[in-house]
């Protein structure tokens, strides 16, 4: 007798990736061995002491459980349930979590399904293997300046500034941008998530030759000879220029002057004011986001909008920005897109009270909408938004709206398929 588990709508191993947000699953008897009565089974973590851990839900509500009892029809009809990563027990390697199905009572194992609780983490705390997978995928995407990374470099130029900065859509646009990149990294290595640089803390592991490089005396990064990022190139030129103005081993990001440090996480989350509004919270675009960028000297790619994406650190910086937004949303429950406290421009461009196109809740976002007529930029690199094997969201032409309920708290079909190591899910 054996069972089969589907995750995210498929029995394929390529879709066995979950986060803290509940993912749809099914279990069925694939071989009943002549049984005619329903079979009582128990789903559980095979190795509770190691690897990623899973919670089970009979229905998409309430608190998940470490185990779940189900009754499986003998005719092989599937039974629905949900699984989620058990916060904060993320995987550190692909397949290190396993769902074991056993016969209730007898304990006979009917199947073991490996999966991954794939989570965006503090990059300073990655295992060497996680770090190497991440670096390898990133270097492959760049492919010495000839890979698909060129699209990501071209999406973040001065010409697109109005689409991306200085207005309400700054956070949703960059959330979309990061997710696009992450999905492309996952096409190369599905075990990879886009990790973040926690810039309000010292991060010596990130600024190392094994990871994102150490500057030589001239500010050009050096890497260990085995690190494929040594071949990183953009705009036909190999190399990355980055010279921090702070001690990367011992200090958080700062520009070396009085009061030049990024504000910490708590101060950032308090930016929303007494009423915890998005309008006030989004001031974080200046401090800490802008401050983090200019904590590197004038020759550094990352200290200028047009050149910033030439440095892979840029994506980890923005991943932390996104994490701060995600945390603010979670702590103050800002997932309802109909509330002005969640997002302050609720209509679409041209409607009463609207702001510039691309920054209203119902506006689609460039470049994924492939619109190149004025006032949008006249090119749209990268094409439509890439799909995912684990969720249908946000679609090929996402709107700002599609970036709000990223965990699927209010609408399960909004789940974007990523989560942060310190931002849990809660109904």
């Amino acid at each position, binding site marked *: 007798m054996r069972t089969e588990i589907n995750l995210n709508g498929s029995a394929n191993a390529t879709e066995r990736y979950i986060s803290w947000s509940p993912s749809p699953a099914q279990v069925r008897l694939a071989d009943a061995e002549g049984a005619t009565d329903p079979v009582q089974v128990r789903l559980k973590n095979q190795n509770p002491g190691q690897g990623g851990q899973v919670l089970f839900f009979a229905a998409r509500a309430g608190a998940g459980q470490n185990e779940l009892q189900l009754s499986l029809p003998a005719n092989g009809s599937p039974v629905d349930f949900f699984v989620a990563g058990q916060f904060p027990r993320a995987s550190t390697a692909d*397949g290190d979590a396993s769902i074991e199905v056993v016969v209730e009572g007898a304990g006979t194992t009917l199947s*073991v399904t490996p999966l991954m609780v794939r989570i965006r983490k503090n990059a300073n705390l990655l295992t060497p293997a996680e770090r190497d997978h991440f670096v390898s995928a990133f270097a492959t995407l760049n492919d010495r300046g000839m890979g698909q990374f060129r699209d990501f470099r071209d999406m973040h130029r001065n010409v697109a500034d109005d689409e991306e900065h200085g207005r309400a859509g700054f956070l949703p646009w960059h959330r979309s941008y990061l997710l696009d990149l992450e999905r492309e990294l996952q096409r190369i290595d599905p075990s990879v998530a886009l990790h973040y640089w926690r810039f309000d803390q010292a991060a010596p592991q990130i600024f190392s030759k094994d990871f994102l490089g150490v500057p030589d005396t001239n500010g050009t990064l050096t890497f260990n000879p085995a690190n494929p990022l040594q071949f990183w190139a953009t705009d036909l030129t190999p190399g990355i220029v980055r010279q921090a103005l702070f001690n990367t081993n011992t200090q958080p990001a700062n520009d070396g002057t*009085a009061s030049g440090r990024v504000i910490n996480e708590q*101060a950032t989350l308090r930016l929303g004011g007494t009423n915890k509004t998005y309008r006030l919270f989004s001031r974080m675009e200046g401090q800490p986001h802008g401050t983090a960028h200019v904590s590197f000297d004038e020759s550094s790619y990352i200290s200028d909008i047009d050149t910033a994406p030439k440095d892979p650190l840029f994506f980890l910086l923005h991943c932390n920005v996104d994490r701060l937004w995600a945390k603010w949303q979670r702590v103050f429950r800002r997932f309802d897109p109909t509330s002005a406290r969640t997002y302050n421009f609720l209509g679409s461009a041209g409607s009463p009270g609207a702001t510039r196109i691309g920054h209203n809740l119902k*506006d689609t976002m460039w470049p994924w909408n492939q619109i190149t007529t004025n006032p949008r930029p006249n090119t749209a690199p990268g094409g*439509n938004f890439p799909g995912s094997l684990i969720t249908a969201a946000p679609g090929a032409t996402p709107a700002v709206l599609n970036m709000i309920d990223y965990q699927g708290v209010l609408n399960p079909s909004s789940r974007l398929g990523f989560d942060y190591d310190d931002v849990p899910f809660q109904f």
Partner: protein
Amino acid sequence: MDVEEYLKQYKKELESGDDERTRYREFLNKSRSVSERLEGLESSANSSDQDEVSESINIIRDRDEDVQIRVTAIRGISNEIGESPELIDLLLSLVRDNTEPVALREPALRVLQQLSFSSVVFRTKRPEYLDVLRSIIDDQDAELRQQAIGVLAKEKDEYVQRRLLEGLEDPSKALIPPEKAIQMLGFDIHAEHYPILRDMVKSPPNPAAKKEAVRLLAADAASKNMLAEILSDKGEDKEVRRTSAIALESLDPAEFEDRAKQIALDEDESDDLRATSLSGLGHFSSLEAVSIDSSFDESVAQLRDKTASEDLRRAAEMYMNRRGGRLQSTQPEELKSVQPLDENQMMGTEPVTVQEPSPNILAVIMGRVRKIIEAIKGNPKPPTPKTPAGGSSV
């Protein structure tokens, strides 16, 4: 972990945390000493209170005020500055004014750079900003000069490019050190820069300048032989040789592959260069070219098992991983590949004991095959695997 409890605790800490507003009000209190006013203000909170903003502006304008206090005031209202053309003008005038202390002008310039990331109003001031930068590229202060030149170089400012080239041709006219000048020309490398870069390689003013020039010659076809010679020269600085390897890989991957294979197996070569060569071969060579050279793969496998160099071992390991090889190493490894689960095991159709995480070799190889197919078809992105959901209004 109880999520509810975690969030409750977090919220409690948030609410009882330091009150940035109170600290800023204390900062504005002139009856306190400078050190008292600055205490606890390593990072500035942003004030939007109109009285505080007005007071901060007065502080910024007050030449008799302590410089650090003035700097902190600038940071304390940076968001407000970003929303006001007049306040941006104030900062621009501070940066331009060489009678103001550099300790004020530099942070003011950094705040303007910060605003370039977040302020819509700043964009309307961009022409004036660039003018101010041009006005200070001859400033007495070297750091301020370099700051301005760096920003302008990234803007591909032709005037600055001319001045940088001038400084390389005639050191008496140099605004910044030659290695920095070369680096900044790299933000907008032109064919006309290549002759002087080649000169910098042949007669370098210093090693850093040579290394930087080698890096930037990666797109110059006429420099291919020079780069190959540097790579072959065992007497050359090893960092310069590594840089030339990377530049050659960019310029002529086939040439690089031939040389990299020789270097990787040459026991008289530096381990660093051997590891770099393997890293390049492993990650970026075409599958066909390397996959038919099984004797090279065998040699790399032996190298991996015998070398005492950790970097070389890791590079060999990664090479074998990328080639889909099975590792038989006796040492604990970071990217260990094991016998993958067979299809039945992966499908969960029979009980198994999973001992180690399954590798992603298949995914890696499929990804590369997909890339090759895309390159043939000229398609930048593969079709989306799921049907898009959701509509759009604009």
